[in-house]
């Protein structure tokens, strides 16, 4: 199991999958206590919880594959920004509620395609995490798609905000489909799909929902990249400063 694959490449890939869940989960959790209505506050917090739970599985496996005695917690709380492998999209600031939902939708539409493909992974550990997570992410996608449609095809104000969110965030989606040598190694081992192979299904979902939401698809735009290689925007540092504070200030603290 996984013996044919370069373990460093496998670790790198697992960090990318896990860090996307971790950073987005943390971002979404920032809404707790601040949402426009109570039900949405609870929904966002629960979604963050799903993502953090999935992070524990992915980073737990990453730590196992790395084989240096680190735990999922240590990977989450004791790495510096340059060691994080999440895409830039998930570290984008929350903005308003519509902006957060648009980011979630663009991510969910990709996440579900990734997990569906990973259910067929040659690595049984990857396949079983994916089979678990895909059921949760199906609810995430249905919720974010519903709200993008409702807000896009809503009032003049909500539509304008959703279009602005889309135009701002779309240039951060291309990174989801990029590949480097680490990706090629896990693809060759049958562990994961080629990132580019998820693009057609993602495009179809996004186009369909944006049309339903009466929003204008931004089309081909410049695409930012760097997060998956550890080159992050300034926003990640602020996230980590908050997320890692306790373990940095009180190393090894438990309760």
């Amino acid at each position, binding site marked *: 199991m996984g013996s044919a694959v370069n373990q460093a490449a496998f670790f790198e890939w697992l960090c990318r999958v896990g860090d996307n869940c971790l950073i987005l989960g943390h971002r979404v959790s920032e809404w707790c206590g601040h949402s426009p209505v109570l*039900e949405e506050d*609870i929904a966002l917090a629960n*979604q963050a919880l799903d993502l*953090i739970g999935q992070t524990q599985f992915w980073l737990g496996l990453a730590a196992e594959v790395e084989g240096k005695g680190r735990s999922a917690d240590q990977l989450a709380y004791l790495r510096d920004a340059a060691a994080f492998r999440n895409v830039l999209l998930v570290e984008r600031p929350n903005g308003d509620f519509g902006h957060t939902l648009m980011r979630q939708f663009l991510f969910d539409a990709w996440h579900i395609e990734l997990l569906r493909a990973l259910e067929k992974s040659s690595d049984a550990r990857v396949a*079983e*995490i994916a089979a*678990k997570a895909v059921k949760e992410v*199906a609810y995430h996608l*249905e919720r974010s798609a519903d709200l993008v449609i409702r807000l896009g095809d809503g009032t003049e104000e909500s539509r304008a905000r959703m279009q602005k969110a889309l135009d701002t965030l779309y240039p951060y989606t291309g990174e989801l489909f990029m590949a480097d040598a680490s990706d090629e190694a896990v693809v060759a081992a049958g562990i994961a799909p080629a990132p580019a192979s998820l693009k057609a299904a993602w495009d179809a979902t996004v186009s369909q929902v944006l049309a339903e939401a009466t929003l204008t698809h931004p089309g081909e735009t410049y695409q930012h990249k760097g997060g998956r290689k550890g080159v992050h925007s300034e926003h990640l540092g602020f996230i980590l400063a908050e997320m890692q504070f306790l373990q940095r200030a009180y190393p090894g603290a438990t309760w």
Partner: protein
Amino acid sequence: MQRGEERPGIAEIRGWLSEVPDPEIPVISLTDLGIIRDVAWQGETLVVTVTPTYSGCPATGVINLDIEKALRDRGISDLRLERQLSPPWTTDWITAEGREKLRAYGIAPPIDGTAADGRLAGRIARLSGMSNLTIACPRCGSTQTRKVSQFGSTPCKASYVCNDCLEPFDYFKCI
């Protein structure tokens, strides 16, 4: 176990576990919830295999502690808990008895076969008609209910309200 002492049988141990309440919905037990996937003796060690409901369910740690406590209180000291992710937990595994307990407690039980699949094509077409699951109000039994939010007080539940008796209630959604 003490050497020479008779080991408790699996059925008896399962009986003990059926008395351990779920920490978040204490009217149903861990066996009602369907998360105890296996109970087996491996030599002198009792191995209890547990599957999580949701990946991030904060009750998971408490559940493990509760299982350990229940079994240690019955004299089982050589005990190991194992996590099993696959096959992933489904609400289909909630027992008939568990479903009735949920309803009596005020939580509408899951309707099998209605889990989200994330396939939006049919869903968008349905959205225009605003079709929804028919969830009966656990208080008055009316099926005139509406969904308020897909995520309720925990990830495993959605928020509904009854149009007839106005009761707000949780629906244990299908997964």
